[in-house]
């Protein structure tokens, strides 16, 4: 993978408390630690107006740390798909002044952001912090299928089977990196797959 990255590649920051009365956190796995780290900087009473939606993942850790923050609501979901209906409903009923904080894997941040964009929020107004795996969500530019948790370079499209170069070019709307056929010009070329996004 090229060491130099490109401008469309998302840059994640460090969560910081925003002005406003309502705060919605969405996090998976290690993302919980981004929230607890931020809590130190938050004004008192900050979590009285906060909801945390948390997807603990297989290792099932960090829940107690989040409970200790005493948010107005703490919702635990087994997967992003299972969280989605609730998240959409929350955003439909929300008012201006709601601030969004996304923390954890790129796949989670991207997909939650996608839902918030559709609800009319600007991506620049959302706080993000990357924690945990670097695995990528990838869209195959040829068949349009999304492959989750891509860790290798190149990678196989789970839908059409083409061998794809996983680019740094990223679409917020699709919440995915772009995958482009790596040996289109000469199919006999077969570059080895290497672990690139652990």
């Amino acid at each position, binding site marked *: 993978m090229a060491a130099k990255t490109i401008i469309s590649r998302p840059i994640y920051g460090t969560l910081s408390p*925003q*002005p*406003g*009365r*309502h705060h919605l956190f969405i996090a998976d796995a290690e993302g919980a630690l981004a929230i607890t780290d931020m809590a130190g900087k938050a004004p008192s009473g900050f979590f009285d107006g906060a909801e945390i939606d948390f997807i603990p993942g297989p290792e099932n850790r960090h829940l107690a740390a989040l409970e200790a923050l005493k948010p107005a609501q703490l919702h635990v979901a087994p997967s992003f798909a299972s969280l989605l209906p609730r998240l959409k409903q929350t*955003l*439909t009923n*929300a*008012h*201006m*002044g*709601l*601030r969004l904080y996304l923390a954890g894997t790129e796949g989670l941040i991207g997909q939650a952001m996608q839902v918030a964009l559709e*609800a*009319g*929020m*600007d991506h*620049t*107004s959302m706080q993000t912090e990357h924690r945990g795996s670097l695995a990528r969500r990838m869209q195959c530019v040829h068949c349009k299928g999304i492959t989750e948790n891509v860790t290798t370079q190149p990678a196989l499209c789970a839908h059409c089977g083409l061998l794809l170069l996983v680019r740094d070019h990223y679409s917020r709307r699709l919440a995915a990196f772009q995958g482009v056929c790596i040996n289109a010009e000469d199919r006999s070329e077969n570059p080895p797959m290497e672990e690139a996004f652990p």
Partner: protein
Amino acid sequence: MSTGTTKLDVVVSDVVPVNDLVTRFHFRRRDGELLPTFSGGAHVVVEMRDSDRTRLNPYSLMGSPLDTREYTISVRRDDVGRGGSLFMHRQVKPGLEMVISYPVNLFSLDLRAKKHLMLAGGIGITPFMAQTSQLAAAGGNFELHYTCRTASLGTYADVLQQRYGSRVKLYHDDREERIDLDRLLSSQPLGTHLYVCGPAGMINWVRDRAAALGWPSETVHFEHFAAPQPGAPFDVTLAVSGKTIRVGEQQSLLEAMEAAGVDPPYLCRGGVCGQCETNVISSDGKFIHNDHWLSEEDHRSGCKIMPCVSRFDGKSLVLER
């Protein structure tokens, strides 16, 4: 402002006093054609030839963007300002031929908004006249909160209430009616955009409260006129061609060179392409750099100038042209 917009030759077709302070002016094209279409929030720059000087003032277009037979602006008389509004009130009569710029929009609607929340103060109502017409025609969701000193100075308040009923809320200073801003801002659905136009104090107050209540800056829009001003004339010596020229107030340095038969290269005439970059041989005075091409360091050094947009104020300027 010689670079920038194209000009329109218009004639004043009507002058209508609206109240003690505000007068409305109607313009049509001299050639009888339709005027260019515009978007709600756009303004035009009106050129005022007042004996030997020219003023350029921007005014919001307040008619419906769907009707381009005429443009209308409303001018509030300002007895202590730079004099543009007094000129309009005293000298501009029906039949006068004037020059205005093409419309420019620095206060456009964000059409992604699920709802448009508009806050007007005084004469700040004018851009909202056009924006509400545009939104109403397209079935847009908007709400207008309008603060004025007294009912009689509530310019167009009656028209707006008649057109949009309860979507327009009025607040009169003399009746101690105050907008409950925090409550208003806290009860808007996600995806609302906020627009504010009025006195600077009001704009600052609304922006501050919105920020404190968690409104992201992308959702808060305010009208700020980058009012183009005619530059002061200045003299330049062109060393290579051996000429000394005067750059008039209505001219760019580039145009003045061209008028003198010196033709520097150019492309954009807007200060970004770099083509017209010109070396300064000597100078005694202050540069007014308006380009986006030279670095800050270049600007400070005084060794270069972009004649398509930049000017000079001082005793002498010698260029390598």
